[in-house]
């Protein structure tokens, strides 16, 4: 197995040089162009920062963003993508954790980038793309690189109110992408349709599969995902054959009666992940696309986006529960009970993961890293870290795993991971909110916030829009005289649950 994503890119560019690697509605780049541009940007960066430095990225939803990422990797550094449509308060939080020397922005991200009070250097990506390729510098960076160097850091909701940056190594990414390609059967003839925001974990597939296979990837405009007829029109125009999308896209399409007039004619390979797929929605997709392969994927960012997969066999029934399946190659997945003992087949335990796909931890947060990535309690013979996902599972007799919910107050909402306590921390940043409790109504995919204080619902909504990403903003804001409490002083969540009915 080739362990450098850059050598793979070069091989693919040799073989498929003139072929499109990435395209959006306006532009496209061939593999040869991707390689050249990434090398230019990498050459420029290598003059400025030492290897293994973090580089913050604020670029738009277009073909150049993956090239910026790869350029950072050519410099031996790692990238931390930041969505410039997020509130500035959150972007500042991310920078305060990451503490990069350099922030790269395109013309679209530049305005926001300059508003963050960032103390390092803000550089325009176009300027770096104009730099000459410095072969000596790039060779030197390649020679000093190790397979377990950080490749990227992706920020996700943190329960203390600050986002945490999960660091993934190049080796982990290589393991995941090759296992995923094997399962999905993707090759150079495929055309991938990207849905995930490019700064989000799920986008790693769309960015790296072309490099591995020679397939092309098209970045579907964001607004298509609100307008299913438009989505299918674009997919058919682009002849999209394979997608890896968030479950919410599939359910929303069904709710909007997407298949009434058309369907994605060329779509043959579908992977969905991010939350539990309702079988009623899956059934509608299967009936519209009877010859398409559907794969359910499960796993957290800490294990390189995934752990297990399950290929759906036959058309599901509405009442079915989809298994999360079996581990991908190079993933060791098992269950532990509360006393760190192995759980027998058929009984519930916490899903734990080990292998070369484990994240390197949380950036600049040793305490949380040490708490979350621990020595495998079953292994007394040698060093082996595991990650306890906080998810419950049950292993069936046939080795297939079932998902059984969460241990804590983390939820999966519209494909994103959300800590309810982060929403409460955000609420407390508004002086006119005294106390609050966030709850999730799973059936309706609604985040509720019950709060006390003088803030009006409108004030509270505006406040949240100003500091939280859109998907984390509570959709139902309920002002109460007082939160219901249990005799022990804790918030009575059952009483709040009743109020959501």
């Amino acid at each position, binding site marked *: 197995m080739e362990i450098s994503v850059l050598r793979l890119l070069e091989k693919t560019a040799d073989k498929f040089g003139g072929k499109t690697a990435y395209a959006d509605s306006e532009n496209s780049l061939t593999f040869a162009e991707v390689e050249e541009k990434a090398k230019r940007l990498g050459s420029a960066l290598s003059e400025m920062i030492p290897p293994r430095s973090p580089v913050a990225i604020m670029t738009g939803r277009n073909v150049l963003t993956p090239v910026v990422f790869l350029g950072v990797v050519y410099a031996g550094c790692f990238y931390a993508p930041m969505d410039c449509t997020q509130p500035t308060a959150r972007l500042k939080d991310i920078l305060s954790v990451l503490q990069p020397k350099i922030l790269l922005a395109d013309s679209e991200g530049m305005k926001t980038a300059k508003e963050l009070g960032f103390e390092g250097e803000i550089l325009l990506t176009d300027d770096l793309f104009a730099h000459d390729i410095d072969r000596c510098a790039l060779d030197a960076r390649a020679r000093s690189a190790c397979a377990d160097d950080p490749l990227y850091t992706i920020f996700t909701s943190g329960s203390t109110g600050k986002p945490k940056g999960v660091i993934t190594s190049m080796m982990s990414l290589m393991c995941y992408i090759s296992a995923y390609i094997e399962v999905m059967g993707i090759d150079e003839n495929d055309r991938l349709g990207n849905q995930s925001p490019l700064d989000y974990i799920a986008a790693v597939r769309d960015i790296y599969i072309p490099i591995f296979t020679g397939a092309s990837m098209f970045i579907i405009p964001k607004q298509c995902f609100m*307008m299913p007829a438009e989505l299918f029109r674009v997919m058919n125009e682009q002849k999209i054959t394979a997608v890896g999308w968030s479950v919410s896209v599939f359910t929303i399409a069904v709710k*909007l009666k997407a298949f009434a*007039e058309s369907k994605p004619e060329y779509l043959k390979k579908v992977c969905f992940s991010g939350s539990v797929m309702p079988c009623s929605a899956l059934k509608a997709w299967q009936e519209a696309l009877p010859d398409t392969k559907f794969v359910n994927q499960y796993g957290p960012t800490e294990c390189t986006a995934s752990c297990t997969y399950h290929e759906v066999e036959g058309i599901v029934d509405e009442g079915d529960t989809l298994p999360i399946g079996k581990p991908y190659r190079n993933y060791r997945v098992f269950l532990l009970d509360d006393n760190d003992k192995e759980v027998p087949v058929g009984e519930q335990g916490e899903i734990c993961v080990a292998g070369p796909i484990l994240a390197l931890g949380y950036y600049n947060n040793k305490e949380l890293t040490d708490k979350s990535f621990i020595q495998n309690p079953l292994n007394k013979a040698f060093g082996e870290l595991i990650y306890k996902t906080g998810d419950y599972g049950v292993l069936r007799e046939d080795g297939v795993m079932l998902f059984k919910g969460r241990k804590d107050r983390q939820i999966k909402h519209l494909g994103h991971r959300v800590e309810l306590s982060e929403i409460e921390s955000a609420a407390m940043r508004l002086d006119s909110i005294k106390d609050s409790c966030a709850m999730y109504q799973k059936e309706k995919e609604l985040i509720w916030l019950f709060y006390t204080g003088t803030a009006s619902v*409108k004030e509270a909504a505006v406040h949240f829009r100003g500091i939280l990403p859109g998907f984390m903003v509570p959709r139902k804001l309920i002002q109460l005289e007082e939160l219901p409490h249990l005799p022990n002083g804790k918030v009575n969540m059952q009483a709040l649950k009743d109020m959501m009915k």
Partner: protein
Amino acid sequence: MKEQLMEVLEEIRPDVDFENEKQLITDGVLDSFDIVSLVTALNDQFDIEIEVGSLVPDNFNSIEGMMALIEKLQDED
């Protein structure tokens, strides 16, 4: 009808200035989750059936666009 529509919109997104936003979809003010809530609410409130073919930016970018769509669908009945 406008008042009734504003009520629906305020309920879904109390933070948005619907009177003045004219690019709700194109500028990404509303997300796909809002659209699902909105379509369901409009169907209920105005006794209409918004089909997938009507889900185009023009019909949802502004309150004017939404009112025109509602009127058109009500006339079809």
